[in-house]
């Protein structure tokens, strides 16, 4: 699936989302000696190949294989960041971020605030999340809502290779802690044009992925691609969909959300995380508070059911995961409401 139409004269290389993450890390390490990556098994390239080849290039100090201890990975990164390093910490799977919760919420998020700006904590924590199929309960989770709403943290969740690279660079250069949620399904499934020259994608800014007038779908990560596919198919049925890709989850781009919602007055929020307490709830609440009179239909959320995560058996997986077909049904219903 490719996000941007290749124009005839375009010379930009098309790379995968995974390569985009890797090349952003490499370029930042070249640009700034203080940038380094650490995590479990990253020396051999990481279990997902995100850091493939990097140890050979930068040495085992700057591509640091850590013991199997998530709280230490984050805690050590925080220590380093406080003395001017720019660590990029990898959590092997998002499902294993929880041992580091205290370091993230009590420490990283509050260091600037509690010290009245005397100290800062510019870390990036890479969090490979989401279902790829065959991952089961503990290799598929979307834990972003646990950290969402924590003042002091930033959370990004790119959906394209272009954004993956630009947001990684912006995250590394940001002076505050950033949780970088990378959807595992996007790694190889998503490729698009990425400039060779240095660029960043600003944190806090959403992107309109498709213009439309009947309904608005707000999504992030892999869900954006499902939404685009569904929109394309529904266009043939005469339903015109506006698609907003959040890109940054915290802080949310409120102006963009309000604008995209106002465009159609019929809003569907779509994410792979559980419905209850998900980021969709906040978006809906923002709209219900600030855009109520422009709504033409109830604000809908299309999300997996409130069960712990996707089961391993193929039948359970299929039941749980959002499909383009089910999404289309929800979109159609909204359009017709």
């Amino acid at each position, binding site marked *: 699936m490719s996000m941007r139409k290749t124009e005839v004269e375009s010379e930009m290389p098309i790379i995968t989302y995974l390569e985009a993450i890797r090349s952003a890390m490499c370029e930042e390490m070249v640009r700034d000696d203080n940038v380094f990556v650490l995590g479990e098994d990253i020396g051999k390239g990481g279990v997902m190949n995100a850091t493939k080849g990097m140890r050979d290039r930068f040495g085992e100090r700057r591509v640091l294989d850590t013991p*199997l201890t998530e709280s230490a990975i984050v805690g050590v990164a925080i220590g380093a960041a406080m003395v001017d390093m720019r660590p990029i910490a990898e959590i092997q799977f998002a*499902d*294993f971020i929880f041992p580091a919760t205290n370091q993230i919420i009590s420490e990283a998020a509050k260091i600037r605030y509690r010290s009245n700006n005397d100290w800062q904590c510019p870390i990036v924590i890479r969090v490979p999340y989401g279902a790829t199929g*065959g991952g089961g309960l503990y290799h598929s989770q979307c834990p972003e809502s646990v950290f969402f709403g924590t003042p002091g943290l930033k959370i990004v969740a790119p959906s394209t290779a272009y954004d993956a690279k630009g947001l990684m660079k912006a995250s590394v250069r940001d002076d505050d802690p950033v949780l970088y949620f990378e959807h595992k399904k996007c790694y190889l499934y998503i490729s698009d044009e990425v400039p060779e020259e240095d660029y960043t994608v600003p944190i806090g800014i959403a992107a309109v992925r498709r213009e439309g007038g009947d309904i608005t779908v707000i999504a992030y990560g892999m869900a954006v691609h499902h939404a685009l596919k569904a929109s394309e198919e529904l266009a043939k049925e005469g339903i015109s969909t506006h698609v907003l890709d959040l890109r940054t989850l915290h802080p949310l781009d409120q102006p963009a959300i309000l604008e995209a919602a106002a465009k159609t007055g019929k809003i569907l929020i779509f994410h792979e995380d559980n419905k209850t307490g998900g980021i969709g709830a906040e978006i809906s609440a923002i709209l219900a508070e600030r855009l109520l009179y422009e709504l033409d239909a109830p604000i809908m959320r299309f999300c997996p059911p409130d069960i712990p995560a996707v089961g391993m058996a193929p*039948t*359970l997986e299929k039941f749980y995961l959002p499909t383009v077909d089910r999404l289309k049904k929800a979109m159609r219903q909204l359009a017709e409401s």
Partner: protein
Amino acid sequence: MSLPNVTKHRQLGLMDDQVLKMYSVMVLARKFDERATLIQRSGKTAFHISSIGQETAQVAAAFALEPHHDYFLPYYRDYAFVLSVGMTVRELMLALFLKAEDVNGGRQMPGHFGYRKHHIVTASSPVATQVLHAVGIALTAVMKKEDRVAFVTFGEGASNQGDVHEAFNFAGVFKLPVIFLCENNQYAISIPAHRQVAGRIVDRAAGYGFPGVRVDGNDALEVYRVVREARDRALRGAGPTLIEAMLYRIPPHSTSDDDMLYRTKEEVEYYKEQDGIQHFRRYLSECGVLNDEQDRYISENAVREINEASRYADQAPYPAPEDAMRHVYAEDGGGV
């Protein structure tokens, strides 16, 4: 080689039929594991994580414990262990094939053991969490004045998680009847033990005031002996024991891993030679407990059981899709 007058296993109080049984389970586990790998390669299943190289220690430990009485908190490589305390190959195959009849209803990855009727406590993927659960179960045994131990295993990589430290300290303060077995198989995915573990895991026990014992994990009778002693200590009220079984993980980390990225064929070949099952087989032959015919019979039996189980599991139905919605909470609401 000359035999002592009394065989080592008899000295340890093990009858001939018990060591034969131990050997049979090791063979069964090995063959199950080889088959599971084949099935995965054939594309029939998505994933397998192997215990090859660790069966000897697992079976020996299990035979030093009391099935259906003690509580067991095995980690994902403990196929041979769970086969020793009551699980059947069919149950393992149902888990591998993710079928509805699997005790976990096909919800969990294979290797995530759990079976209440066998006193095998349900496991998750985040490593080392179970070590604290074992301490809680041991605490319960003391509170209820029950004569049982909790037995928990984990890898040397997992041993570095904070929860393990908290568990050691908690168990040490209250002198709880828990046995901590670290299966040190030299790797945590790609990270060799010397880059993962500062010092020696076995030496950590002293810092909590309880004994640590290092044992050759390929020596079934030694493992049996130290686990037995640990159990006796625990039941005497003398508190926990940490055992570090030195092993080697023969296969890659899992079917998704390429181990040639971080170790050599030669290294793996070297350790294959140390196989504890072969050691044990030789010992049993030397003692006259096992002859070639029995050995063949044991192998054939294992293969038959595995054939039947895999056929059964392959044909068994998947869980109904909407079963995904069940058991988030107790079905009657769980309340009052």
